[in-house]
């Protein structure tokens, strides 16, 4: 595996700006709400710029791990502070940067306990960034939990529907996942006999015996699968999404679920490829059940956020299906879908947030005809819904297309089922759009004001990303390929 050290620690700079941002927010007195928001925008903007820079500066012809930073942390256990990005993590870092920045802007109108909100939000995002860039198993676990622990407070304090229940359920589910991940990580460390937690050293085919790989893969797959909302471990996700405040829902559905899928890819698949091949059929079955279940459950919902929550379960099933094909195309499609789904759900929650803040309801029957009252705000939601259906020209189309093509080759039956389910997804998305934005308008909301340009900024960024990648998907595929092709070529068969 090729590794190129960083000339400047860009990755640590991203983490550092999160930490410095958090400390700055803590220092500012609580009353200066505007200043806190400005500081948050400033530091999240730096994170966004750095992640965009890293994305474009990544050498696509060289591939491998780039921007590598390696510092010994606990030598006696072989733990090092080891960062680097490859084609799998790079899209996720860019995604985190975009969702982080737009998430801060989406919460611009927040008035209660502003300081605590943004401080916790920065901790959350620091954990997410850290996880995507870390190449040390110990740190991957630490960052995983760093991103979990602010969630309880973020949801329980600023959330809406059944927030305490949703927060507790989410936290316990995700921690149960980590209860499987930690033993698996230590197990791999002990079995390798190398006395190192470094991902790069452990990622050698043939290092672990097949039985070790099968066992560790299962632990890691279930552990991270909970976070990726793999059926039947998905039930925290709709409840959590609905309960969370909009900005947190964005990070949560947009990025945090990707951590799960990324963890499966990075730890389970890349460290235990034999286990992956062994359990691939199980993964495929769970994924396909998730796709169908999410779509059908989404049909019945009357709460806007529940609709998105269940559609997420369905869309993450597509990611799982891609990962389960054991092909280059499957991996490419899965990572692309992770990115596209992240941007799409962020747009969903951001636009629902605007509507909810004005109308104080997410109940579909109470809304209606909104497109005539707030055309711009409605347009954002409709774009997200169209992306969710998989309309060509928007990013999600490519992710789903590539995954389904790969699935057709490997599991023809599942491929057919998945495509049929797409129709159901289209049905419930269009139904929601029709009932919420068309039809007779509820007179109570006739006086709503449309999105101002400033508040529209985050949504416009998200729409633009969806469009750019929809029209020019190679931008992302070229990056993912630098990781997926060498990995699959090195796979023991």
């Amino acid at each position, binding site marked *: 595996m090729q590794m190129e050290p960083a000339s400047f620690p860009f990755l640590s700079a991203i983490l550092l700006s999160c930490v410095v941002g958090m400390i700055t927010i803590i220092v500012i007195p609580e009353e200066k709400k505007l200043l806190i928001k400005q500081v948050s925008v400033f530091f999240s903007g730096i994170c966004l710029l750095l992640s965009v820079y890293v994305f474009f500066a990544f050498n696509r012809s060289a591939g491998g791990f780039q921007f590598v930073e390696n510092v010994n942390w*606990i030598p006696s256990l072989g733990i090092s502070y080891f960062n680097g990005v490859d084609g799998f993590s790079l899209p996720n870092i860019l995604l985190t940067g975009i969702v982080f920045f737009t998430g801060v802007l989406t919460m611009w109108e927040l008035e209660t306990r502003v300081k605590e909100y943004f401080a916790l939000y920065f901790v959350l995002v620091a954990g997410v960034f850290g996880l995507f860039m870390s190449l040390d198993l110990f740190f991957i676990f630490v960052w995983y*939990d760093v991103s979990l*622990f602010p969630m309880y407070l973020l949801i329980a*304090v600023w959330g809406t529907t059944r927030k305490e229940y949703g927060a507790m359920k989410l936290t*316990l589910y995700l921690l149960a996942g980590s209860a499987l991940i930690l033993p698996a990580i230590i197990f791999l*460390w*002990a079995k390798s006999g190398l006395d190192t937690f470094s991902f790069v050293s452990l990622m050698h085919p043939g290092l672990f015996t097949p039985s070790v790989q099968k066992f560790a893969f299962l632990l890691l797959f279930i552990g991270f699968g909970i976070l990726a909302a793999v059926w039947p471990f998905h039930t925290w996700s709709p409840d959590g999404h609905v309960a969370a405040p909009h900005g947190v829902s964005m990070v949560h559905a947009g990025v945090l679920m990707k951590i799960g899928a990324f963890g499966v890819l990075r730890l389970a698949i890349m460290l235990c490829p034999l286990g992956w091949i062994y359990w691939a059929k199980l993964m495929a079955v769970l994924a396909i059940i998730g796709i169908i279940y999410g779509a059908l459950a989404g049909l019945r919902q009357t709460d806007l956020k529940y609709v998105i929550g269940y559609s997420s379960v369905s869309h993450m099933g597509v990611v799982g299906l891609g990962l389960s094909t054991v092909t280059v195309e499957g991996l490419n499609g899965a990572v692309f879908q992770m990115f596209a789904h992240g941007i799409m759900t962020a747009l969903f929650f951001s636009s629902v947030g605007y509507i909810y803040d004005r109308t104080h309801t997410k109940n579909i029957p109470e809304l209606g005809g909104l497109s005539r009252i707030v055309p711009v705000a409605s347009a954002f939601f409709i774009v997200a819904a169209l992306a969710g259906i998989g309309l060509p020209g928007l990013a999600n189309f490519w992710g789903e297309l590539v995954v389904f093509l790969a699935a057709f080759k490997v599991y023809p039956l599942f491929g057919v089922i998945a495509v049929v389910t797409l129709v159901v997804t289209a049905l419930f998305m269009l139904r929601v759009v029709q009932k919420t934005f068309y039809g007779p308008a509820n007179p109570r909301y006739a006086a709503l004001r449309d999105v101002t340009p400033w508040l529209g900024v985050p949504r416009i960024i998200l729409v633009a990303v969806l469009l750019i990648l929809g029209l020019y998907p190679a931008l992302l595929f070229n990056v993912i390929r630098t990781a997926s092709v060498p990995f699959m070529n090195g796979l023991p068969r």
Partner: protein
Amino acid sequence: MNWMTFSGPEIFYFGASLWFLLLTFTAKPESVNSGARGRTYLTAIFLASAGILVCLASVHAEGWLFIKAYKVDPFSQVFKTLLSLGLFLIVCICGQMTDIDERRHNEFFFLLFSCTLALMLLVSADHLLSIYLSLELSSYSLYILVALRKRRAQGLEAGIKYFLIGSFASAIMLFGMALLYSTCATAYLPEMAKVLPGMIGAPAVVTGLVFTLGGFFFKLAVFPFHSWAPDTYQGAPNQVAAYIATASKVAGIAIILRVLASAGQGSPYLVHILVILSVVSMTLGNLAAIAQKDLKRLLAFSTVAHSGYVLLAVLVMDASAYSAAIFYAVAILVMKFTAFMVVVELAPDGRNLRIDELAGLHRRSPLMALALLVALFSLAGIPPTIGFTGKFLIFTAAIQKGYVALVIIAMINVVISLYYYLLVIKAAYLLEPARTLPPLVLSFPKRLLAGLSIVTIVVAGFCPYWLIQIAQAAAQPLILGR
């Protein structure tokens, strides 16, 4: 005389407790005014902080005392430093002991210092008799400390429960020691370590070992000797409960490590028993804690659970496990202290704190709320905190020896424990009090103490290498001593 140079801490704490004993004789009962109380308190602070320096100065000492019944080595010296630190922290939160009769403050400090002295003797004890003597000395001080509470009924009940179970445990321990002595024909731990491997399968030896450990299980509140913990924590003055939860636990971990490292090698029966006790302790402690309404009772059950985690490290019995257990002792000291500091600050009149009384804490004192949050997440074992790193070290040691299933059980317990810690955090951050309570005014030293505790928990969790090195150095004599 060279014994003076390397038993500095013991002599110092002996002198300090004598000083308070003298004060109890000279103080006139009628004329206790705030000035006298302040002087007593300042003396205690001064002596406790000087004690840390004395311990640090003698940290490199090595040797034997009292016909080799008393061993001074890096292991004992590190633990003595920890104990002195624990005492200092506890004295820091003894500023307003409204719950203890003002005329008894000198006695309180006398008992606190003499108990610390006893615990220091315990971590150095290398002979069954010196172990027993120092264990009893520390327990007797604690029995009285628990019963000192002004709320007579509560304190006395707690003290008597503690005393009865304690004397029961020490009777069992004495029986076990007698069995060990009769089979090994020696009471020196190093001598036993030489004799025991040949006859570790003998029933009398295993029984003797388990019974001897019973006394330490009582100290650590391991199942089945845990039942005193919730009642005693609840009935004891808050500061005393804090002391039992921190310093006393640290010494308990030390002595169980010392005894098992020299006498417990190579017995599968003993390991099986320890596995069962560990699993039962952590599961029982965590499940029972869910139902608690009183914060101190909750912390008591969480102590039982933590003793289960410690046993997990103890039963692995190799170098990395010993250093993990020592690291975890530091973690317990810091995080339990931080949690109890919040209890003491929130109940200035010394009452027992119900969990719902935490309502609105985030507004009354953001700093205290944050301290509670960090301490509880650390107790639950969420990174980046010292509690997580401690658990991580224990788990790596256990999995290296092949106890994967045991670690998974422990991790499931971590999830259970997070539930009740989150309930406490919810009370502090979400619930609003029925009537608005005034903001909590904290003096500068208290704010400093809270801030330092938070920073220590997080920084030691994130950059633990320095602490791990100390733990490894301290664990060295346990391996060489075999």
